[in-house]
């Protein structure tokens, strides 16, 4: 005869504990399943006179600087709208959730935003990898998601509720390839990419494809990992191939150091890059060594467009004179596109908002005229700018 009581003892504690903790989480009410066609809950994301919008991003961790920049732009757009009276008499409320730059936390974060906070729309992620982790969840619940700066083409392919307001890699890579070929007239280019970042890899791949198509030669394709400080080895390899230009599609956090080390090794080749370069920190870190480098961007601080001028002025006022970087501008535009869509939508439901985002046409944003195409991508021209001290000088515009 076995003592059931004793054996229960083994596992009772275990089960009890799980139950207790599950109850601790008990303030979490189950929302209506919003699966197929379950749009019955008309007041998703509306609490009293507030409209709940979610944002998930890397606000801590190794990529926090990108997430925080985006957040600044998004918050500014929301506050502006609220000061102007809000939407349909309701105020916008932004719920920002941190994912520490981890993919699995991004999935958890967006699930929380949608099923617990009941947001009406989501703005998120800089990195395409984390957008890809989150997008299927937004799609499943039919909640519109706008990514400010995930450039991988696959992100919006997830479904009809996923949008972006930035370039896609094939376009931006092509822009710099064209620029190197037509304006700089260089033939031999080396590539130095960040293998930890899908953004950098995508840009490099499309650059190489286009540039070789145009008849140029890629003399070296070296890799680094973001977070490292020493790039001398890769640069020594590149130097031996005597390139005329080096394409470095990384973020300013590393590019500044790369430029410094390249010049110290005696490399005089022109440095080229993408919108990841856009930050006032680039020149602060790289100093004179980064001068004369070219990168593709959404806009230039030299622009006389009142939208851009106004944005930069207000941003500086709000954030102690900080110059907005590309991510802040993209975050601002993503929020603006969403706000405009809400404004136009006949009713405030995820479905109606989605439909209006899809109809966005010639929206004058900071990062250019945004038109959402049938693949839910933004098509807009890119500008190429030259680093010249703390300012970037406009060089040329390249249309898609």
């Amino acid at each position, binding site marked *: 005869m076995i003592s059931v009581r004793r054996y229960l003892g*083994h596992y009772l504690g*275990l089960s009890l504990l799980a*139950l207790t903790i599950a109850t*601790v989480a008990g303030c979490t009410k189950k929302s209506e399943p919003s699966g197929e066609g379950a749009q019955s809950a008309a007041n998703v994301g509306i609490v009293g006179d507030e409209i709940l919008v979610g944002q998930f991003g890397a606000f801590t961790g190794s990529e926090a600087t990108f997430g925080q920049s985006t957040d600044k732009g998004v918050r500014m757009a929301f506050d502006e709208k609220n000061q102007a009276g809000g939407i349909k008499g309701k105020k916008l409320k932004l719920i920002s959730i941190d994912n520490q730059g981890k*993919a699995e936390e991004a999935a958890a974060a967006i699930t929380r935003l949608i099923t617990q906070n009941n947001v009406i729309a989501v703005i998120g992620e800089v990195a395409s*990898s984390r957008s*890809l982790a989150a997008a299927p969840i937004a799609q499943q619940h039919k909640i519109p998601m706008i990514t400010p700066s995930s450039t991988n083409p696959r992100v919006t392919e997830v479904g009809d509720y996923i949008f972006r307001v930035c370039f896609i890699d094939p376009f931006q890579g092509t822009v710099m390839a064209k620029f190197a070929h037509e304006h700089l007239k260089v033939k031999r280019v080396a590539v130095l990419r960040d*293998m*930890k970042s899908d953004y950098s890899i995508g840009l490099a791949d499309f650059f190489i494809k286009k540039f070789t198509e145009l008849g140029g030669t890629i003399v070296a394709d070296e890799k680094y990992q973001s977070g490292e400080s020493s790039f001398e080895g890769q640069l020594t390899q590149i130097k031996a191939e005597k390139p005329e230009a080096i394409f470095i599609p990384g973020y300013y956090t590393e590019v500044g150091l790369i430029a410094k080390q390249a010049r110290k090794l005696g490399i005089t080749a022109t440095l080229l890059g993408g919108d990841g370069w856009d930050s006032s920190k680039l020149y602060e870190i790289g100093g004179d060594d980064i001068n004369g480098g070219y990168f593709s961007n959404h806009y230039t601080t030299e622009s006389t467009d009142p939208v851009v001028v106004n944005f930069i002025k207000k941003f500086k006022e709000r954030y102690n004179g900080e110059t907005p970087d590309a991510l802040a501008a993209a975050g601002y535009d993503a929020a603006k596109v969403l706000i405009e869509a809400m404004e136009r939508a006949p009713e405030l439901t995820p479905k109606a908002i989605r439909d209006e985002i899809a109809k966005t046409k010639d929206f004058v944003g900071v990062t250019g005229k945004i038109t959402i195409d049938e693949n839910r991508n933004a098509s807009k021209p890119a500008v190429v700018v030259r680093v010249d001290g703390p300012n970037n000088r406009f060089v040329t515009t390249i249309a898609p």
Partner: protein
Amino acid sequence: MTSRMLKSWLSPLIAFVGMLVIGVVLDQFFNQYVQLIILFACTNIILALSLNLVNGFTGQFSIGHAVFMAIGAYVSAYLSLRPEIFGVKFTMFPEAIDYLNYLVYAVCGGLVAAAAGWVVGLPSLRLRGDYLAIVTLGFSEIIRVILLNTQAVGGARGLFGIPRPDALALGPLTLSPFLVMYVLASFWVVLTFLVLWRLIHSVHGRAFLSVREDEIAAQAMGINTTQVKVRAFVISSFFAGVAGSIFAHSANYLNPSTFGFTKSVDVIIMIVLGGMGSLSGSVVAALFITFLPEFVLRPLQEYTHIDFRMVIYSITLVLFMVLRPKGLFGSREISDIARSLRGERSADERAS
């Protein structure tokens, strides 16, 4: 005879049924966010249990446990995404019983991870302590870099669109996809616990402990310490691979960055917090470490608008270690504690 059989199967059965009840509650009354975190918690429980075999019971020092999880996760996800590999169909069961496929994926993931565990276990013939730790760390970095550069599994972009089990119709009942996944996860949690529990309380298990306590003495007693250590690595890696599989099909997305040094450290934190060499301690600590940042610190962060989740997490960790240096349970099990609360003497005390 029947009584003996009943005895050995009753407690896991009760545990499994208990978990199922929790599952139904979760399914009915909680939202998907909570459900996802619960699945992550199951993953972490299996990870902690399996690492405890190597670090806690055998006394080796592995700081690369996440790599086995990564291998299991990627193998499992890859199998589920490909109709056939080398002419073998891994998705072998029809859609109606498609949850069985997930068992196949998990076992395959576990087996490949176990093979990797064997490879890592080999250096433990010669190395010990921090030197072995460096090898496990190095191995996990090597695999991470390889995954980062393998386009077939998505590279840095990550592997997405990993399927989850379909809803399951059982006569008039329909189990939601979450419930199916949860039942699978519970099955593995209970199995892991059962296998490790019985292993440790068997003759083989005493061999693990003897290696931890005194390797030379163990050798003198005729224990093949090399074999014991490698065996610990293989079994532990198998279950870590299974945990990876559950993770892959719960998150539906994999990225090499998930399986870095930080993840391995998280698992070590769980087993130390729970008490080295306490299986139930591992379970409790895994739940604690999963739930603390999500269910406690997240609301706090939403309330205060400051991202100090990790700050509080780290302070908790330090305080815990300072105040309870032996972990929650030390090397005791929850049943020992329950018993001592009732005033009975624990098995260890009786033995002494």
